[in-house]
């Protein structure tokens, strides 16, 4: 009996929770089913992701899990995680690098160059603005004693299979924004031919097409300042160039330009484009490590400018000739030497209207100038020297039949040293002994310059 009661009690005890669970069981099974379904879904999703990742790995587009911090361990002898072997069976996986590297289509390549320098000279602020080079130009250096500079934004990218597009927008420390260059270049014309259009640095001469931050010295040379102005020949227009089918490099170029250059032409000199250039450049390698480049250029057109003499307006015609020579020896990345020289000759004739007088006088001036500069590079250091002068072989300044005299020949001597911490940082110290005032007084000029570049990797032009 006792056993029965115990058994009964046991059964009751057993059934009690069972009874209580009765309803619950069903809901639990349902819950389990739901969980299973959810897990099934998760597994399916994960499989999908795995499949996608496998695809990506095949295409090689999965970036390695190695963070940049681990890449170059600070403790140098840390074992780098072994890079994963990725199965790649496809021969052409279709990851072709674009013309400028990378594959960004949503953005053009962008770079920013900060060019800043501290400048000191014997000239006053007024002289720096207006002193000019007597007999050549009334435009001063345009610098300030103290801090100068600008930040230059560059954008470039292929437009489509037929054109590349470039724009350069410098913003001065005063906040002046300028569209220095904006042009297209063709890439699909028949072998050897190319067109360029928009606003661009003319291919006239050697130095002209170089951007300021790529110059070997902080400033431009005397003949450029005297005949083309500080900025050089940057014009709206169209350019045609052709590499001749010859066994050595020979480039022919011709341009039609608007003629806005304030020193040589002037915006209002004529209705429509009124400046034309032509040039021929040739180059050959003297050895595996040395190259010579020679060129002859001419630019001519109608002129109307107020930069000939103070308070006057000149109206007439101008032609400027240029001979260029560039030699470079570069046996290794540790050292190189370059020698560059140009000779320029300008002929100008027309009427000089003194703004105080009624009758204009006939002016003809034939003047020349040249510079020679050498730069020696040793590892991350570069040392440069430059000599530039005007009125070398001829200095005709004939106003109303009278040869004018503007004092002793303008010339300068420059020394430069720069230190390149990387490809993107340059620190430069430059000194100029300047004899261009026309009065025989010396001006000492010192520049301490810093150039930084960030963003897209700009190509090194030769």
């Amino acid at each position, binding site marked *: 009996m006792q056993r029965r009661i115990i058994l009964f009690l046991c059964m009751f005890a057993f059934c009690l929770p069972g009874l209580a669970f009765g309803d619950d069981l069903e809901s639990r099974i349902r819950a389990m089913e739901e969980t299973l379904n959810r897990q099934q879904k998760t597994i399916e999703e994960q499989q999908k992701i795995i499949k996608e990742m496998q695809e990506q790995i095949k295409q*090689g587009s999965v*970036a*390695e899990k*190695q963070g*940049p911090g681990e*890449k*170059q361990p*600070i*403790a*140098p*002898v*840390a*074992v*780098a995680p*072994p*890079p994963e*072997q*990725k*199965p*790649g069976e496809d*021969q*052409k*996986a*279709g*990851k*072709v*690098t674009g*013309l400028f*590297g*990378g594959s960004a289509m949503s953005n053009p390549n962008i770079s920013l160059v900060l060019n800043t320098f501290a400048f000191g000279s014997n000239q006053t602020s007024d002289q720096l603005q207006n002193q000019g080079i007597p007999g050549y130009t009334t435009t001063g250096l345009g610098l300030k004693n103290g801090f100068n500079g600008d930040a230059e934004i560059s954008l470039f990218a*292929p437009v489509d299979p037929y054109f590349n597009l470039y724009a350069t927008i410098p913003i001065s420390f005063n906040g002046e924004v300028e569209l220095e260059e904006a042009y297209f*270049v063709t*890439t*699909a*014309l028949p*072998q*050897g031919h190319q067109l360029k259009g928009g606003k661009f640095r003319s291919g006239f001469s050697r130095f002209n097409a170089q951007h300021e931050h790529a110059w070997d010295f902080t400033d431009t040379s005397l003949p450029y300042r005297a005949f083309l102005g500080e900025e050089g020949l940057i014009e709206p227009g169209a350019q045609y*160039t052709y*590499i001749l*089918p010859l*066994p*050595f*490099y020979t480039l022919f170029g011709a341009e039609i330009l608007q003629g806005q250059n304030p020193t040589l032409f002037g915006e209002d000199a004529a209705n429509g484009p009124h400046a034309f250039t032509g040039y021929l*450049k040739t*180059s050959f*390698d003297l050895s*595996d*490590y040395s*190259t010579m480049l020679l060129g002859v250029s001419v630019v001519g057109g109608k002129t109307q400018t107020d930069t000939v003499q103070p308070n006057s307006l000149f109206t007439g015609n101008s032609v400027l000739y240029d001979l260029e020579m560039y030699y470079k020896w*570069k046996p*290794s*990345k540790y050292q190189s030497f370059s020698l560059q020289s140009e000779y320029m000759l300008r002929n100008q004739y027309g009427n000089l209207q003194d703004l105080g007088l009624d009758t204009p006088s006939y002016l003809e001036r034939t003047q020349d100038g040249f510079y020679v500069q050498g730069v020696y590079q040793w590892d991350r250091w570069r040392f440069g020297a430059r000599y530039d002068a005007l009125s070398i072989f001829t200095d005709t300044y004939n106003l109303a039949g009278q040869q004018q005299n503007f004092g002793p020949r303008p010339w300068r001597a420059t020394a430069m040293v720069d230190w390149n911490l*990387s*490809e993107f940082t340059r620190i430069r110290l430059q000194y100029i002994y300047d004899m261009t005032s026309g009065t025989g007084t010396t001006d000492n000029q010192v520049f301490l310059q810093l150039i930084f570049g*960030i963003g897209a*990797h700009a*190509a*090194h*032009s*030769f």
Partner: protein
Amino acid sequence: MKKTILTLIALFLWFTPAAAKLNVVATLPWIGSVTEAIGKDRINVTVLVKPSQDPHLIEAKPSMILASRNADLLIYNGLDLEIGYLPLLIESSRNPKIQPGHPGNLDCSQFIDVIERHQAVDRSMGDVHPLGNPHYHMSPTNMARIVRGITQTLSELDPANSAFYASNLKSFEDRLKEKQKQWSLIPVRGKRFVAYHKYFEYMAKEFGFELIGYVEEKPGIPPSAGYLERLVESMKRTKPDGILVTPYYGTREVEALSRMTGVKTIIVPHDVGSVPGATDWFSLMDSALQALK
């Protein structure tokens, strides 16, 4: 007058290639060498970079622009190794055939599995190649694929000679198989090296040696004194089998390091023509692996 015109015509004909041979421009010596192995006398190969030049720092010389102007095919390393001059060269070539997207523009890196791709890099880390390590040519696996790709492109551009190219590919591949057997016998597996630049990663992966440190603190930037001090200390501790350096760059630094640590300097030829024995890609690999032994 008549004579002058005739001379001019003759000159013009002389400089206009006789239409038959494909003009190939290769940026690096090894590319020129393997392309020549496939094209032999049916192609003209011009190599732009000398083995003694640092491939990272080349200028687009006018002679290089001229060669590119006349090219039917431009073959390059890719992964931004040539970023400093190739974009300018391609644009200045005024040659539609070698523009990106055309069959005459061949980027060899498309055939290989790139290692050391970086998701987030900036230039404070030195001259890092964000697209991945571009020094991939000292790997037989990569080379087998690249040579296939080059053969495919040559046949596409010059179908008349495709059988010739295919048979040259066959002999290249046979030789590669033969050579791989020889190379597998050279005892480099398991060795541990310190290297000057990240030049040997693909080779290490393939031949089973390890690179446990670098002399360059950051790629392309000379190491600081403090970094070198730490490197010397850890090398004294870990005792690697050698310091690897290419024949032209960093040998001075590596030799100094060698004196300080007692670890031997190993000069590894990095490209065809960089040492007298390395006359083609096979002999380049021979001498590189012998050096590591």
